[in-house]
Every structure is written in structure tokens, then in C-alpha cells.
């Protein structure tokens, strides 16, 4: 009952505070849209491609107006060459095997090379197919002529037929096999979809952290918090009321963002939509309890903002935007103290690999442990205002 009163109050206050509403619901959409256009724009139109020992027919096929070809000798070190000449990628050939190394510091350039190579090989196959059909047509004509002759003249000439057949089969297109390497990042580092789940988690985390923290801070500085504690309300009821009230807004925010990503950006996720919502709810509750906890160390809204570089920025760094696998071991371990790491990892796994509830449960449990831990700290911390 008293929890309900708190929840109702939070909702009413929130709807009256248009600026905060906008911060929570419009700001993430704006940033998401910006990111979308940033990652998906093909503003980079040219990429320099190094070739080493590649069939000239293939090189010719791959070449188009977006590609600048650099020819290298046979025995080069691809990574070395890429670094030295700052080119977007190198293709090396041995036999039918193509080894492509991408610099990948600008993923859109990697995309250009990938597309050109794909188009090139297809072009080659078509050309080969066309050549084969033309040859076959010619051969057919020849055979017809021979057949006609055969009918007229002596039967010994018929032995010529198989020879012309074997000639056409020699022109079959080469079937290239390819393998790719990346100097920076991975093959997946280039897509908006890869960032989207992380961004989802991050937005919910940041905004809920700020809004709940500032709102409790406001209660503290205006004296309403100690006024609240002059009523028979339990300290836990205040905290749970806060978690519920702002939790509702966090879920709404997640739903809006995911809906937006699906319908406006046409992003396809592999996993279950509701799992994303569940993970985000857990993340939001961590952010809430953390925000409330941190707010006890701030005496003004500005001081709350000052915590962002300490509390929020490191979490972004370890949320998966920067691939963890490339980090030093101790940094990888450090990631494990940040809640956003668990949330973002789970979100990514669900959205891009279709992870199910069972496989993200360990991460969810860790998030729940964070929630419980901070909530207890908060409830105990309120003893400063009333000792029971």
C-alpha cells in the first residue's frame, strides 16, 4: 500500500516533468538514430586493395570505381604491408586459395572490399559460363557439320567428335576458396546490429542511473526524504517503491527503443525479444539501486553528474563496444566488476546469437546479486535519517 503510494507519486511526478521524460525517451532515440546513420552510411567510397600473386583475370574482375589496386610481389607479409602502406586490405593467392587480410579500422572500407571481391568472383563465373556456352555452341555447330559430312561421306570421320568435347571442358571457371583475417576488430565489428544491443543496455543504464539518483538526491536536499521517514513507512518500502516506479519507466524505455530499432531501422534480432526486455529490466534495476546509492555521496545535481566519468564511462569501455578479447588479461578481469559488462554481453548474445534464457541465466543472476547488494546498502544507508 505504501509502496503503491510511492510508485504512484513517482509516475505522476515523472509525467509532469516533461524535460526528464524527453531525456529518458527522446534522447536515446536521437542518439540511436545518429549512430544508425553514422555506421550505415557509405560515405567512404574508395578503398585501396593490395594484390599479391592473384590471377590477373580475378584482379580485373574485382577492380571497380571504388577500388584502387596496388600490386605487390609474391612473398609479402600482408599485415606488414597493410600497416606500412596504410591500405584497406590485401589479397594473397596460392593455388585456388585466396587469403584476404582487412585493416578494418574503417569497417566501411572492409565492406567495399568484401562486396567488390564477391562481385568479382561472380563476374568471373558468369564470364566463364558465357565463354563455355559460346564454345559449346560453336562445338555443337562443328558437330552438326561433322554429322552432316558423316551422313554424306565415309564413317571414319566420326572419331573426331570426342576431341572437340574435351576442349570445352578445359575452360571450367576456377573455384576460389577464401579465408579472411582482420588486423583490427572482427568481421562483426562493422554493423549497427552489433552495437545496438549494447547501446540499448547502455541507454537504459545511463538514464535510469541519472534520473533515479538525481530524484532521490532531490528528495534528500529538499527534505522530503526525512519527512517521509517521519511516517511509519519502512526504509525498504521507499527503496522498493523507487525500484518499481522507475523500473516501469525503464521497461517502457526499452520497449520504445527496441520497437524503434525493429520498425524504423528494420534491425533483425536472432533471439527472443522478451529476453532483451528482461535483461534490460535487470540492468535498469542495477542502475536504479546504484544511482540511489551513489546519490548519497552527492550534495547537488552537479555532483551527481560528476560521478558519470567514474561510474559510467568505465562501464562503456567494458561493455563490448571495444572487443574484450583484444584486452590484456587483467583488463578482462576488471570487466567483471562492471554490471554493464554482464548486461551488454547477454543482450549481444540474445540479439546476435539467439542465446536462450538458460544460457544467459548466470549473467542475470550476477545482475540480480548487484541489485540485492545495492538495495541492502541503500536500506541500511537510510538509517542516517531514521534508525528504525
Amino acid at each position, binding site marked *: *500500500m505504501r509502496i503503491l503510494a510511492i510508485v*504512484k507519486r513517482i509516475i*505522476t511526478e515523472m509525467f509532469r516533468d516533461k524535460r526528464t521524460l524527453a531525456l529518458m525517451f527522446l534522447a536515446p532515440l536521437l542518439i540511436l538514430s545518429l549512430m544508425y546513420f553514422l555506421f550505415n552510411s557509405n560515405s567512404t567510397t574508395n578503398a585501396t586493395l593490395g594484390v599479391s600473386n592473384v590471377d590477373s583475370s580475378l584482379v580485373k574482375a574485382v577492380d571497380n570505381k571504388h577500388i584502387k589496386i596496388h600490386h605487390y610481389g609474391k612473398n609479402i607479409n600482408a599485415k606488414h604491408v597493410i600497416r606500412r602502406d596504410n591500405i584497406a586490405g590485401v589479397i594473397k593467392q596460392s593455388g585456388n586459395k585466396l587469403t584476404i587480410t582487412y585493416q578494418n579500422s574503417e569497417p566501411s572500407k572492409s565492406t567495399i572490399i568484401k562486396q567488390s571481391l564477391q562481385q568479382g568472383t561472380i563476374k568471373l563465373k558468369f564470364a566463364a559460363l558465357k565463354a563455355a556456352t559460346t564454345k559449346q555452341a560453336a562445338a555443337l555447330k562443328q558437330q552438326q557439320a561433322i554429322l552432316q559430312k558423316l551422313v554424306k561421306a565415309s564413317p571414319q570421320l566420326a572419331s573426331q567428335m570426342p576431341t572437340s568435347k574435351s576442349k570445352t571442358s578445359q575452360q571450367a571457371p576456377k573455384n576460389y576458396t577464401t579465408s579472411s583475417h582482420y588486423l583490427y576488430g572482427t568481421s562483426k565489428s562493422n554493423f549497427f546490429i552489433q552495437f545496438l544491443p549494447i547501446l540499448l543496455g547502455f541507454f537504459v543504464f545511463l538514464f535510469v542511473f541519472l534520473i533515479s539518483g538525481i530524484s532521490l538526491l532531490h528528495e534528500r536536499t529538499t527534505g522530503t526524504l526525512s519527512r517521509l521517514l517521519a*511516517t511509519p513507512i519502512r526504509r525498504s518500502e521507499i527503496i522498493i517503491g523507487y525500484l518499481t516506479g522507475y523500473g516501469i519507466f525503464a521497461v517502457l524505455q526499452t520497449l520504445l527503443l527496441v520497437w524503434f530499432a525493429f520498425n524504423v531501422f528494420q534491425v533483425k534480432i536472432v533471439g527472443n525479444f522478451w529476453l532483451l526486455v528482461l535483461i534490460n529490466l535487470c540492468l535498469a534495476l542495477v542502475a536504479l539501486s546504484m544511482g540511489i546509492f551513489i546519490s548519497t555521496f552527492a550534495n547537488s545535481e552537479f555532483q551527481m553528474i560528476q560521478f558519470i566519468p567514474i561510474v559510467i564511462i568505465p562501464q562503456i569501455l567494458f561493455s563490448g563496444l571495444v572487443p574484450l578479447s583484444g584486452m590484456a588479461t587483467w583488463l578482462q578481469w576488471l570487466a567483471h566488476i562492471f554490471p554493464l559488462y554482464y548486461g551488454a554481453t547477454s543482450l549481444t548474445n540474445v540479439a546476435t546469437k539467439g542465446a536462450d534464457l538458460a544460457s544467459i541465466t548466470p549473467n542475470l543472476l550476477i545482475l540480480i546479486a548487484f541489485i540485492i547488494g545495492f538495495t541492502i546498502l541503500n536500506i541500511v544507508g537510510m538509517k542516517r535519517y531514521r534508525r528504525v
Partner: protein
Amino acid sequence: MDTVIHATNIKKIYSNKTVLNGVSLDLIPGEIVGLIGPSGAGKTTLVKIIMGMESTNEGEVAVLGTKMPNRAVMTKIGYMAQSDALYDNLSGKENLKFFGQLMGVTGSKLDKAIAHAADVVNLTDDLGKRINNYSGGMKRRLSLAIAMIQDPDVLILDEPTVGIDPELRQQIWAELYSLKEQGKSVLITTHVMDEAERCDRLALIREGITLAAGSPKALKQEYQVNTVEDVFLKAGRLQDENSSNR
């Protein structure tokens, strides 16, 4: 259960500064007790200690026979803090409703309580307005209305009439007297000496101790002066002389 508030030998030290040094206070049903003293004397601190919102270094407080701090007893105490603690984005009515619900008042009872409390402080016509459109005096009145919302047995009011015009102050005192008639108790801190005159009993707190206590009449006799204000001044002077003699 004879005493409504029973505070004994309260000692409070804030980082080396002794604010209260052995203050005792009793309040019986149907009594209005005024807490007076210079600014910074520790009136608010004492009130908070009685509410159980502040710890003590020594001494104990019992309210309605229950040792404080105690959560359940809070329902029976109507508290008005020295600074208004209201939700700016909510209307007067929503504030009243919220605190009423926290106090466990619900349904039609709550509606009646809101109407009555608003009437006492003359806010009935302004209940729909948001607090950020309220004047200082209106906020004070709303805080008082909130303190009365659950019809408590004890009212603890910390400077309730600051910024309230004389006419309305009369009305509020009329309400306090009517509560007193119903056997309820009021502890009030004040700076206004004509309000002090209206209390049944006064406690003058100065430099950490209860310098003088008794009914306004008895105090005036004791110090051989005509007003409570003079009691206040004379008692203070005597205390200063005493401490400088030592």
C-alpha cells in the same frame, strides 16, 4: 500511560559541539508545550530526537509509552518540520493524499481528512494548485495540514507559524485549542513570544540546558517581569553572568 512525551537527560554532540547537555521534557495529554530559545539553541535537534530521526549521545525518549525510535508510533505523531518538505510537482491535494496514504488513511476517510485539514489552514481553494505556485506562507500551511492529516494524538510542530499572517495564526491556534480539548498534545517550537504566552507550559532552552520551565504565568512571577519575552531576555542574561563569574 500518563506522559505523551517523556524525554530524559538528552545529550547530543555534533562533532565536538555539545548542542544539548542533559535536557529533559515531559508532555501530558491535553497539553500544549512551547519550546523556546535563541536560534541554534537546539530546539529542532530536540524535536528530531523525540521523533527518533536523530540519535542521542545520552538519554532516552519515549512517546506514548514506547521507546523511540519506533516506526509504529510514527502513525500517532503529526510532525511538521522546520523547513517545508513538499513535492513541488504535485498539487496541494496530491501532497496531502500522498502523506495521508503513508500514514495509513485511505478511501473516504482520507477525502474527509483532506477537506478538514485544508479548511483549518484556509487552503481549500488552492488545493488544486501545484506547490511551485504556492507562496512561502501557503507551503507552511500545507505542511501543517499534512501534520494533521491522520488526526494524530501528538502534534510536534517546529516553528509552524513562520510566514503566516496574524489572522490565520489565530485560526490555527483555535484549532490547536480544539485539539487540546479532545485530549491531544502539542509540542511547538516558536520564536514568536505572543504564541509562547498561549502555551500551557514553556521550556526555555539555552546553551544546551533547560534554563527555565513552567507555565508562562509562573515564569513571569519567578523572574518578576511582565512578558515572556522579558523572561527570555532576563534568564539569558543571568545565565551569561553566571558563566562569566565562574
